[in-house]
């Protein structure tokens, strides 16, 4: 492999030598964007921003309930603004699923924003067709459905790029397909070229979580490689044969190594031999990762099989309300006091007849996160006592008002409960929080595909 390759900026040589550079600029709604500018400076042909976790659509649904013109991720303008000089120069194109559950409104906002800045000549594409509520009759969706979305593949994005779009905004498209699409557009990989499509999805999977492939959340020696305030976001240098080198902009923090890349390769994939994507079934047990230089890992030998027969859909319904109390107890006997305090509240709920469907208790400093994996017997036997314990009691009720009733009772613990207790932090609780159930469903492709549309608007 060559050491460094300048941005291709489109076809510049024989296909085998062409390198298309993808940048992973976002891993979720709320991600920091400090890593985006270095990506653009280093030169990427495509800046790809993945904004939608399973949970994100639920957040956006609440926005849309308040205002029909919302329902997309509100930080989208920040990314457009960062990329704008590069978009205008034709150096970079921008792909994102930030449209959430309202890609039309997102596209509108971007177009209006560009016009307001006097930008001319950019093409903005919007992809729709992922909203399953249009098919509620066929799918037997519950009446209480808050949103229902299907994970679309790369095809409509490829269509938008073929039409010359500089900016492509989608709703729910499978994360990795956002990255596969520009490679299909650039290299013309056939619809049944499963190995290369699998290679593209592998690259997408590696880049879709921004800094997480570059040493973020790394379980190895995270403390030895650079500054988190100057994060390295990932670049993939991709070739027509399906091979790619994962790297990051020079001078940024983090690390790209065999170890950091394999941690991301395995992230949330379940069966590594059958990573299901709308465009291909990828086999990550075939992948070869090779360190080819400092912060450079080559990805090769990727095998794939035909895509699943159905699309994956997600259906979201309300699942009640949670209320909670958090209190900090100091040494001595901190755990004993914390547990006694929470037990008091539990009994108080019975006295008041609060209709609680589910209880959950956590003791930070004891075993709140580790649960049964923490060997409390050995800790007790060693006579170790935590310096402080943070108690958290959570309950689920069907109704919001019911969930709110018990929180008021925690006041008694301030003056009439076990000693040395204090609130935790200065931020006030905002009251009960709505819980949501997500169900994954299989959706016939024939139901969805006719409704997938790409609209391209020139600013």
């Amino acid at each position, binding site marked *: 492999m060559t050491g460094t390759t300048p941005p291709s900026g489109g076809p510049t040589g024989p296909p085998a030598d062409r390198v298309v550079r993808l940048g992973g600029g976002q891993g979720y709604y709320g991600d920091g964007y400090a890593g985006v500018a270095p990506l653009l400076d280093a030169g990427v042909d495509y800046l790809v921003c993945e904004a939608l976790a399973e949970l994100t659509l639920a957040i956006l649904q609440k926005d849309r309930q308040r205002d029909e013109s919302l329902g997309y991720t509100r930080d989208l303008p920040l990314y457009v603004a960062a990329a704008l000089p590069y978009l205008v120069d034709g150096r970079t194109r921008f792909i994102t699923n930030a449209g959430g559950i309202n890609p039309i409104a997102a596209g509108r906002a971007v177009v209006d924003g560009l016009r307001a800045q006097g930008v001319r000549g950019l093409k903005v594409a919007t992809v729709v067709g992922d909203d399953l509520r249009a098919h509620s009759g066929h799918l037997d969706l519950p009446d209480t459905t808050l949103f229902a979305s299907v994970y679309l593949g790369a095809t409509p994005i490829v269509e938008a790029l073929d039409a010359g779009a500089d900016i492509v905004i989608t709703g729910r498209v499978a994360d990795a397909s956002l990255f596969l699409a520009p490679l299909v557009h650039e290299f013309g990989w056939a619809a049944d070229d499963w190995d290369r499509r699998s290679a593209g999805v592998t690259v997408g999977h590696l880049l879709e979580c921004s800094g997480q492939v570059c040493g973020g959340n790394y379980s190895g020696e995270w403390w030895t490689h650079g500054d988190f305030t100057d994060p390295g976001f990932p670049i993939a240098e991709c070739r027509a044969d399906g091979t790619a080198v994962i790297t990051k902009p020079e001078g940024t923090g983090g690390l790209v190594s065999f170890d950091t890349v394999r941690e991301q390769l*395995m992230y949330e994939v379940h069966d590594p031999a059958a990573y299901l994507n709308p465009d291909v079934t990828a086999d990550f047990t075939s992948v070869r990762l090779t360190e080819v230089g400092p912060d450079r890992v080559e990805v090769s030998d990727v095998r794939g099989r035909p895509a699943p027969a159905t699309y994956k859909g997600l259906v979201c319904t309300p699942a009640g309300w949670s209320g909670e109390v958090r209190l900090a107890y100091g040494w001595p006997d901190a755990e004993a006091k914390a547990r006694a305090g929470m037990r008091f509240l539990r009994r108080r709920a019975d006295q008041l007849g609060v209709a609680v469907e589910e209880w959950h208790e956590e003791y930070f400093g004891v075993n709140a996160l580790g649960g049964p994996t923490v060997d409390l017997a050995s800790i007790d036997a060693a006579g170790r006592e935590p310096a402080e314990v943070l108690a958290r009691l959570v309950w689920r009720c069907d109704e919001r008002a019911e969930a709110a009733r018990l929180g008021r009772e925690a006041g008694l613990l301030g003056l009439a409960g076990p000693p040395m207790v204090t609130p935790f932090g200065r931020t006030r609780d905002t009251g009960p929080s709505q819980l949501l159930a997500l169900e994954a469903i299989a959706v016939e492709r024939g139901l969805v595909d006719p409704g997938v549309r790409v609209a391209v608007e020139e600013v």
Partner: protein
Amino acid sequence: MATVQLRDLCGVRSGDKGDRSDLTLFADDEATYRAVLDAVTPEVVAAHFGDLVTGPVERFEVPNVLAVKFVLHGALGGGGPRSLRSDNLGKTLGGALLRLVVDVPDEVAAASPRRGRRAPVDRTPIS
């Protein structure tokens, strides 16, 4: 055989999908990979997590990157937006898996580059 905590043998990455926790252990060489396969069975993982996990535990072998993956069903209190847990996505459960104590061949325990590796604690005040 030597008794070691997985912390001194493996890397780990935690993820989630729905109500499932997806945890992967990473070995640094073939011998460690084999030792992890022998010692860390789905049954051992299920017992380790106890009532934190309500469903079955599946295991997948990924020899090309020396990884052993576990999918824990019913591990997140109903799934991210439904769970009452602080760690509703199970981001810390990989660490909980590293707490497991296993028996491995002496040479595997002795050779592990992760043995005794600890992050330095910087207690300098931040202001």
